[in-house]
């Protein structure tokens, strides 16, 4: 196999732009398409398809409701008032508990509304990028205590998702959720707190091995006094160490924004973010030559993320065998993709809970390193949870999720085009096209035929037959219980 390159992919007769590639683009640059969307994208020119996803500003987004934090504000104000008036301890505690509960409910509301947004959005690449940043510039409960701060951070990611990453790094350094998650809100002169400085260098911009422990200590000094009040960034001069610092060999009276300027002068930074973007969208451990090329694009575009994305989605590497159908779906990808693919209606909180069990709890990242990629999602238990997820879609409950009232069985007949269905083989082909989007070997195909009580592709079948609905439901569950469905 030739080494994949970032050269423009030029469709040829033997390697055309087709439904398989259009499906791949919709999967990776979003959460997957329905057969109709895939057909539409396959009918466009490749750069028009990529630009439609990339230039999402020109797509009118659905008006999603804003989350209302006034109940939390009211309880907070009441608590302050009670404390100032030295109210009885018991009263104070009762209101504090109410506030905690209200805040926790808002956390759930943000999670549910984000998942609904990923399912319904007309700007799938934007939501995919918000997910990318949430997993890279990590904040979350319980270290970030305020749900509203997390909502503000998601807005920030949505606003700056594909623009200048240098501006985004500066903005996140001043973001209340981040300031509390990595404790910079208490970082002060004299005895600095290294938490933010270390992770900024190690996980957000440069990567380990490109700075010393002394650089971390000096950067921590530069970020002293960067804190927040309410929902706003505040610079506290009295807490700030305005002495001279030497950071990455440069000496001066640096503050946090100087540190970020110096970070972005380094070659390691030019390679770090493009590598992370590539690994998220294309494949892990990219060839150094690819990273080098992307770093060039990144620098020339003044740290612009959209420039990297466009190069990537139009490249030979993106449509190479190494990339196609080799990525393990994240739980979000699996769950959101399945709901989009099947058009099922289901309580978003149940979906959030399913993702939690599979190991991707939105707003509750496992640690500052964020979530794994690839095989890291898969172990014996998570795989069974992922397989069983189809019963949540089909029957409204799965082990670990549900408890409440079972929803009426979801409709499945719309997954099959009755007009094109004459044989059992036709049904299986349509299911494979919708769910797997690549050919299946004969044995596995034979297994799916068995769900329709036959060994033969040419067995006549009527999509209106008495047993057909129930057979189709079994077949959907089996398709979603296959290793092939775990990949995209």
């Amino acid at each position, binding site marked *: 196999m030739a080494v994949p390159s970032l050269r423009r992919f030029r469709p040829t007769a033997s390697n055309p732009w087709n439904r398989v590639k259009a499906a791949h683009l919709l999967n990776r640059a979003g959460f997957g398409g329905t057969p109709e969307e895939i057909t539409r994208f396959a009918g466009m020119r490749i750069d028009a398809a990529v630009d439609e996803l990339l230039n999402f500003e020109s797509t009118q987004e659905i008006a999603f409701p804003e989350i209302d934090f006034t109940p939390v504000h009211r309880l907070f104000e009441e608590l302050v008032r009670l404390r100032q008036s030295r109210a009885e301890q018991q009263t104070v505690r009762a209101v504090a508990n109410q506030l905690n509960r209200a805040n926790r409910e808002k956390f759930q509301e943000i999670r549910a509304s984000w998942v609904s947004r990923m399912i319904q959005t007309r700007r799938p690449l934007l939501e995919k990028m918000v997910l990318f940043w949430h997993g890279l510039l990590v904040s979350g409960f319980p270290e970030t205590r305020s749900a509203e701060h997390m909502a503000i951070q998601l807005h920030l990611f949505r606003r700056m998702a594909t623009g200048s990453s240098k501006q985004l790094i500066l903005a996140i350094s001043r973001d209340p959720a981040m300031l509390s998650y*990595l*404790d910079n809100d*208490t*970082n*002060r*002169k*004299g*005895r*600095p*707190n*290294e*938490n933010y400085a*270390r992770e900024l260098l*190690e996980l957000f911009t440069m990567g*380990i091995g490109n700075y010393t*422990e002394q650089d971390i200590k000096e950067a921590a000094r530069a970020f002293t006094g960067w804190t927040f009040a309410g929902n706003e960034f505040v610079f506290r001069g009295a807490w700030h160490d305005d002495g001279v610092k030497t950071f990455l060999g440069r000496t001066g009276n640096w503050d946090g924004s100087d540190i970020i300027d110096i970070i972005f002068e380094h070659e390691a930074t030019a390679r770090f973010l493009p590598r992370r973007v590539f690994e998220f969208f294309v494949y892990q451990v990219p060839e150094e030559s690819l990273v080098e090329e992307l770093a060039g694009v990144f620098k020339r575009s003044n740290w612009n993320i959209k420039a990297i994305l466009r190069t990537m989605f139009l490249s030979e590497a993106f449509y190479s065998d190494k990339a196609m159908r*080799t990525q*393990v779906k994240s739980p979000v990808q699996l769950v959101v993709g399945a709901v989009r693919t099947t058009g099922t209606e289901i309580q978003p909180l149940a979906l959030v809970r399913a993702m939690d*069990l599979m*190991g991707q709890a939105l707003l509750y990242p*496992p*640690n500052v*390193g964020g979530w*794994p990629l*690839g*095989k*890291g999602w*898969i*172990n*014996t*238990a*998570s*795989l*069974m*949870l992922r*397989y*069983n997820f*189809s*019963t949540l879609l*089909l029957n409204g409950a*799965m*082990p*670990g999720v549900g408890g409440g009232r079972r929803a009426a069985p979801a409709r499945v007949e719309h997954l099959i085009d009755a007009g094109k269905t004459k044989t059992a083989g036709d049904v299986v082909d349509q299911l494979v096209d919708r769910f797997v989007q690549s050919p299946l*070997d004969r*044995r*596995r195909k034979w*297994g799916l035929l*068995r*769900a329709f009580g036959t060994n033969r592709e040419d067995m006549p079948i009527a999509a209106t037959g008495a*047993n057909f609905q*129930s*057979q189709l*439901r*079994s077949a959907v*569950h*089996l398709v979603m*219980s*296959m*290793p092939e469905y775990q*990949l995209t």
Partner: protein
Amino acid sequence: MTQGMTRREFIKKGLTMVAVGVTAPSFITRTALAMNNPWDVAQVTSRPGVPDDRILVVVQMGGGNDGLNTVIPFTNDAYYRARPNLAIPQKEVIRVTDELGFHPNLAQVKDLYDKGAMAVIQGVGYPNPSRSHFKSMEIWQTADPEGRVVRYGWIGRYFDSKCPVCEQPTVGVNVGQAMPLAMNAETGMGVSLENPETFQWMPALNGLGEKEEQELFKLLNAPAPGVDEPGTIDFLRHTAMNAHVSSERVRAAVNGYRSGVEYANTRFAYSMRLIAQMIAGKLPTKVYYAHMTGFDTHANQRGTHENLLQQLAEGVSSFYRDLEAQGNADRVVVLAFSEFGRRVAENGSNGTDHGTAAPMFVFGKAIKGGLYGDQPSLTDLQDGDLKHGVDFRSVYATVLDKWLGADPAKILGHNFERGAFI
């Protein structure tokens, strides 16, 4: 003590295995064979004098535990000078020696210490310590501070070394959401679960019938004979089969035992209870892995750290009492570690930043309890951090050699000195 399935169970399960076995690749066939009598395999490889039914439980204290506030040098002025806000007052410390004591919330494990069932190994670390959570955790889990590229974990390499029951997926059981790198084995053995009830594939039951659906599940998931598939899909098939052959056994083991011992209502205690249930249920397992998180106390450390030590002590203590009630206490050793300790001096946030050496803890009825290693100097520091006296790999070597009867040099790459705690 016999472990594993009865003959009748094997015949029942063996048949389902054979159904897969017709087309199955070697690892599944091996699994099916091994299920016949798990300890048969053991007879071939075990070392004389080391019983095969010994179990290791690893407890990972994620985030970097503050060793100095766990095992406290309460007569050392340097400790109180470095920590004006965070130091544990002398009168609160649970005294162990004239100079060292436990955090007050470790009272329950102090009982184990007094019985000789707890060893504290002080000043554990490694050369050129990394203060990155991720790098240092990787180093501890692969036992590789030298930066060779190691794909498999130290426990995984033990599974690869033909240990007793190593042919069974349940040889390693992780209780937690993600499989630790430590258990990553070339043979792919080891299972991971959080809740036994969700650890099973559910048929859709839409008229096909459960039996037929289970058959189709195997057909759709089993690796194809003679087909060379790309790594990831092969890994998925392998994992699905490991789940398939172990989920019923795990649930049967767990459901067959109800402990009379009370456990605290924490996630860690829940994990330890589940492990105790699996041990009582005779699951063929050599290593269990449990997790605690939240030790990364950069700010407002006091309450958080107190609470975590309380959870640790409660979880370990209940587990130990449970094992005693089962009659299994002398078969099990618990090893608790963290990826690093914390800076000697507190920061301005009433917390501590990443440090280096810290104590490790070993629990078990069969061990030789006490204090091992020296408390690192609080004045002779390297970049503000403690210098380690004991290499963590010598602790691993001791456990591998003296407890599990394996060859540490083969697994760890060097012949590290053995400790006296076992």
